[in-house]
């Protein structure tokens, strides 16, 4: 009886070790997955328009706001407001460009994965 018990325990240990190895391997492949493999934002036409619009407007608003605050502080009213307004516009356009690039990259990836219609059927 004890012998039988020991034998099954041995077998259990071996299978546990095997399971452990498999778990470790699975965990490693999960960890190795790069952050580039992003969960992507769902794209609706309305959502896209809003996202890009918000990016552009906040660029202008933040740029203008910082410029105005600097002017208030230094008493040079139109100087920094104008300068930062244009810098903010550039930052906004850059944000829009980056977002758009990300969206088209996501669409390309979807097409490569064979579900090209996923971008316009979602939402």
């Amino acid at each position, binding site marked *: 009886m004890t012998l039988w018990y020991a034998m099954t325990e041995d077998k259990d240990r071996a299978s546990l070790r095997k399971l452990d190895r498999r778990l470790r391997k699975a965990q490693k492949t999960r960890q190795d997955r790069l952050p580039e493999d992003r969960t992507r934002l769902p794209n609706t036409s309305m959502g896209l328009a809003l996202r890009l619009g918000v990016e552009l407007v906040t660029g202008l608003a*933040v740029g203008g706001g910082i410029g105005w605050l600097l002017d208030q502080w230094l008493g040079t009213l139109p100087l920094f407001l104008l300068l930062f307004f244009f810098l903010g516009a550039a930052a906004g356009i850059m944000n829009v460009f980056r977002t758009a690039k990300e969206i088209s990259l996501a669409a390309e990836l979807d097409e490569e994965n064979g579900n090209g219609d996923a971008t316009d059927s979602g939402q």
Partner: protein
Amino acid sequence: MAQGHSPLAQFEIHKLVEISPIGGVDPSLTNSGLFMIIVATLVTGFLVVGMRQHAMIPGRWQSMAELSYEFIANMIRDNVGSEGRRYFPFIFTLFMFILFANLVGMVPYTFTVTSHIIVTFALAAVVFIGVTLIGFARHGLGFVKYFVPDGVPGYLLVLLVPIEILSYLTRPISLSVRLFANMMAGHTMLKVFGGFVVSLGFIGGWAPLAFIVALTGLELGIAFLQAYVFTILSCIYLNDAVHLHH
């Protein structure tokens, strides 16, 4: 409900419990504060009660609690990698708070906490400051390199570095405006069409009523989607700070 006819009356803040100001700050309990407490209680209740049995084979509530856990855990792993795991508690709290605030706001006669820009901006500011501090803590002054694009000649850096910094500074604004605008627009639209139902009466009121039903479904979707968008963008910002690339 005399003032309730304005579609914007739902966003008014009332003091429920007056507390005298402490050091110039008015700590009175408002309807917004009350609903934040309700939301926090609901999230805690949902998770604690859901996980009370912690069974091997989960029941309905436990499944939902585990589902939300895994949803955020996967999101962090996909967007930040395994280094992001230590930030899980914060991201999870953020997601659950926004999601429940949005959903609680869908119940008639409630107040939508996330329809006020100061609330969403406070959330976004915490994310922004936290991410910036994490960036500096992990990379020291090397985090400054995040604002210097690669392979650009020196004279252009004078122009590009301020633009990059400005673009970085727009993050909390765009993050908070996106959530607040979606919630406020949706709730205003519901109220406006609700007004149409009343003013068109029994004969003409059915069309806007049907529209409200459809809109409520859409708003439920948006409530979830915006919580998701806020959280995933926080993850992406966190990834930029942890891995230092665009």
